[in-house]
């Protein structure tokens, strides 16, 4: 069950979720007939109604604000994945790995931001988030270079900026 801030606007995020879900339905089906579009509309409304009823919608993130910032963040994340992926490939073929456990501080305020930061750490090859305390992550890194890259705090800053 998602924990929500009491003061976050609910109706706007429900409307944005509706448009995102309908766009997903349209991309996956590709139909343009009005009857089928109507069926898609019904299914999207049904899914939204069920997830509101079961209180599993997350109002923490307002997706409308993220839509502008997210593509820039994803391009940066892909660049980062390729960079650390090449380092990991080099380590695998050479065989000279020296793993490290480090503790990283997260400066994000809400739970969604922390989850996103832990996700980004695990997604870049060579670093895996093992355990999450309140504000510190226990991270397993494959080499010294990768752990120092994480401890410079660039990724932390960018993701904190994303969730403001």
């Amino acid at each position, binding site marked *: 069950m998602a924990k929500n801030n009491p003061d976050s606007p609910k109706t706007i995020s429900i409307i944005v979720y509706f448009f995102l879900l309908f766009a997903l339905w349209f991309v*996956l089906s590709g139909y343009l007939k009005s009857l089928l579009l109507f069926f898609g509309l019904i299914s999207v409304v049904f899914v939204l109604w069920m997830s509101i009823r079961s209180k599993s919608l997350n109002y923490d993130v307002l997706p409308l604000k993220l839509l502008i910032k997210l593509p820039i963040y994803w391009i940066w994340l892909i660049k980062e994945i*390729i960079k650390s992926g090449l380092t990991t490939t080099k380590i*695998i073929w050479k065989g000279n790995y020296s793993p490290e456990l480090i503790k990283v501080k997260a400066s994000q305020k809400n739970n969604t931001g922390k989850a996103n930061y*832990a996700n980004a750490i695990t*997604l870049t090859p060579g670093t*895996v*988030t093992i355990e999450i305390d309140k504000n510190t992550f226990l991270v397993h890194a494959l080499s010294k270079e990768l752990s120092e890259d994480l401890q410079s705090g660039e990724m932390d800053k960018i993701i904190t900026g994303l969730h403001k």
Partner: protein
Amino acid sequence: MEYLIHYSTIFFLFLGCFFILSGSVGLIKLPDVFSRIHAAGLIDTLGTGFIILSLIIHSGFSLLSLKLLLIPLFILFTSPISGHAISLFAHESGYKPKAKLKRK
């Protein structure tokens, strides 16, 4: 133009295959669970990423390429969760990694 599409498809397909191969080699070669997760992550991100990129170039830009773009989007959300689940379970059940904790 057709040659460019053809050869870039082949190039990215080989690049993806190379990353999947090195991830598989890493799965065998690396010593403990925590290091092997890194190799699996390499397959998840760069391997599938480059192969789907080559498929998008091959199919041309249409509704199909949008559908193909949805695959890495879902992998982006699900693959770290499975990696985190494996590592958290290994950590909770008392499996010691070969790495030592660095305090700073």
